[in-house]
């Protein structure tokens, strides 16, 4: 029975995946540039969400500095590319390495902190970084901001190039993270989340795994940032603040923080709501707040957990990240 359904799933996948891939490749010819821009934004938010899946969903750390790493990606990529003259893909990777180095720096205290102490430390850190965005005006243009130089692939239009660039990066990131999740390494990360006290006796260094998770999540955030900058075309320190953090929290927690598919669902949810509520700006924030509250209250596994719930009827299965954390039940 189980094997049968697995086989069925595989056949379904072998049909769905090529169709989706084809659709993705021809999408620029099907929709207008604005729709394509929104689709690109969804892809970028989903990529950034993967970073949060690694650190929050798998490793169980309340890390709230994601937007800072995204900002580092935006600024450093652009600075290396337009001011220093490094080719764009290399600039992107260098920026991502810088972000993951800083991720390790914040990871050091974080590895010792648990629960909400980590939330405070990462929020404070994010505040520091946003100060830095104002101060280091050579790179960031200070409080006034800086325009981002556009990259074009083989002379395509900018909307088109951004779409294909984001698509390529998204495929690489998703494939990489998905693969990592299935390895012993990915299981170790989840062990750090579920049974940190046990890790020591199993010869797993929870500190090292946390540091790695921080580095990886910062790396992914900066990669997403490099692409995000292209869409923004003008970046100021205000872009990387609480409002954006809330949107990323909604991406992962409405979608389902333990699953990669959750970030796609969540990214679609956020970008579509942003689009629908564009004319009533202030309602956006309210809707995101309510979504976050409702998701934590009623759907700890996110939208992508609904299918599994209906199938197994065990509503309190172990998928929900929010029911883990301290090791010792309250």
């Amino acid at each position, binding site marked *: 029975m189980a094997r049968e359904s697995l086989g069925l799933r595989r056949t379904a996948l072998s049909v769905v995946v090529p169709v989706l891939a084809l659709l993705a490749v021809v999408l620029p010819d099907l929709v207008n540039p604005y729709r394509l821009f929104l689709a690109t934004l969804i892809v970028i938010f989903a990529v950034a969400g993967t970073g949060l899946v690694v650190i*929050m969903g798998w490793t*169980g750390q*309340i890390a709230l500095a994601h937007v800072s790493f995204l900002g580092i990606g935006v600024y450093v990529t652009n600075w290396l590319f337009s001011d220093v003259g490094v080719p764009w893909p290399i600039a992107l990777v260098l920026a991502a390495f810088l972000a993951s180095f800083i991720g390790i720096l914040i990871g*050091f*205290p974080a590895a*010792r*902190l648990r*629960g*909400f*102490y980590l*939330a*405070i*430390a990462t*929020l*404070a*850190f994010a*505040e*520091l970084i946003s*100060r830095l965005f*104002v*101060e280091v005006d050579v790179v960031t243009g200070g409080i006034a901001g800086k325009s981002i130089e556009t990259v074009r692939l083989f002379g395509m239009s900018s909307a088109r190039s951004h779409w294909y660039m984001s698509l390529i990066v998204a495929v690489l990131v998703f494939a990489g993270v998905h693969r990592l999740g299935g390895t012993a390494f990915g299981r170790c990360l989840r062990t750090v989340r579920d049974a940190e*006290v046990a890790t020591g006796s199993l010869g797993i260094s929870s500190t090292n795994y946390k540091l790695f998770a921080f580095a990886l999540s910062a790396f992914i955030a900066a990669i997403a940032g490099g692409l995000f900058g292209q869409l923004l075309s003008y970046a100021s320190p205000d872009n990387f603040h*609480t409002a954006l953090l*809330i949107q990323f*929290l909604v991406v992962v*927690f409405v979608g389902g923080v333990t699953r990669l598919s959750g970030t796609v669902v969540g990214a679609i949810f956020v970008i579509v709501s942003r689009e629908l509520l564009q004319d009533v700006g*202030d*309602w*956006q*924030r*309210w809707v*995101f*707040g*309510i979504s*976050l*509250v409702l998701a*934590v*209250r009623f759907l*700890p596994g996110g939208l992508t957990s609904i299918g599994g719930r209906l199938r197994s009827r065990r509503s309190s299965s172990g998928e929900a*990240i*929010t*029911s*883990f*954390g*301290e090791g*010792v*039940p*309250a």
Partner: protein
Amino acid sequence: MLQQVIAGLQSGSTYAMLALAVVLILKATDVPNFATADMGLFPVFVIWQLIERGLSYWLAVPLGIVFGVVLGLVIERLVIRPILSESHFASVLMTIGVSVVLGSALQLIWGSEPRRLDAPISGNFKIGDVFITYDQVLIIGLGLAFMFGLRYFFTTPWGIRMQAVAEDRVTPRLLGVRVGRVFSVSWGLAAAISTVALLLHTQASVLTDAAAGPLILKAFVAATMGGFGSVTGAFLGGLALGVIENLSGFYINTGSRAAVAMIFVVIILMAKPDGLFSKARPREV
């Protein structure tokens, strides 16, 4: 210098009061409440609205505090109690969500333009070379009163029940403690403290929808400096933070003001995560 210290104590008192509200809820319900500042700001806007409608300050303020308490009780009952059995992960996200909802609702109702909320008593007096406003005396004095009040409160039967419940939710219930009521009392009380803190803070500066944002992190920084278990520690942490901030703003530059607090908290969390006044505490394994 002394003038700067006094100004620092004034902003420090706001941080300290909010830190007390944070510690109170944490001690009773084990929830780190990131919505503390917004829970205080919303009732202050209600107070402003009441005064605008022609009510006197002395009537509007108690009504606003009652509104704040009711708001706190409703939030606790509606969204906090159902997730109490879960970890800090859930409660951090939930209270962040609540703060976003409150903050944006406030913006939707009242908009973003700055307003003035006039204090009933104004003016200043002079000791030596130092000017002291009545506002400053009031805010520092009330802060002290809240701290001693809470210290006393934690020695009363209610306060002891509260700490027992935070430690362990099952045993106190077996011993006849009505856990739900303990939660309500702590959230109601914390909401009242936040309302007073935000009222004093906004009438000393301006009343805008953006007032809560910077305060909440400061409150947590103050509580961290004091160690989350201690009322006195949280209060002193708040005062210290205010003074340090003001002095660095004065002697270094205004940009350093915000950074100094954050650098402090990161260092404290790395070196002494249980606060500056803590004793070693074993962790259950």
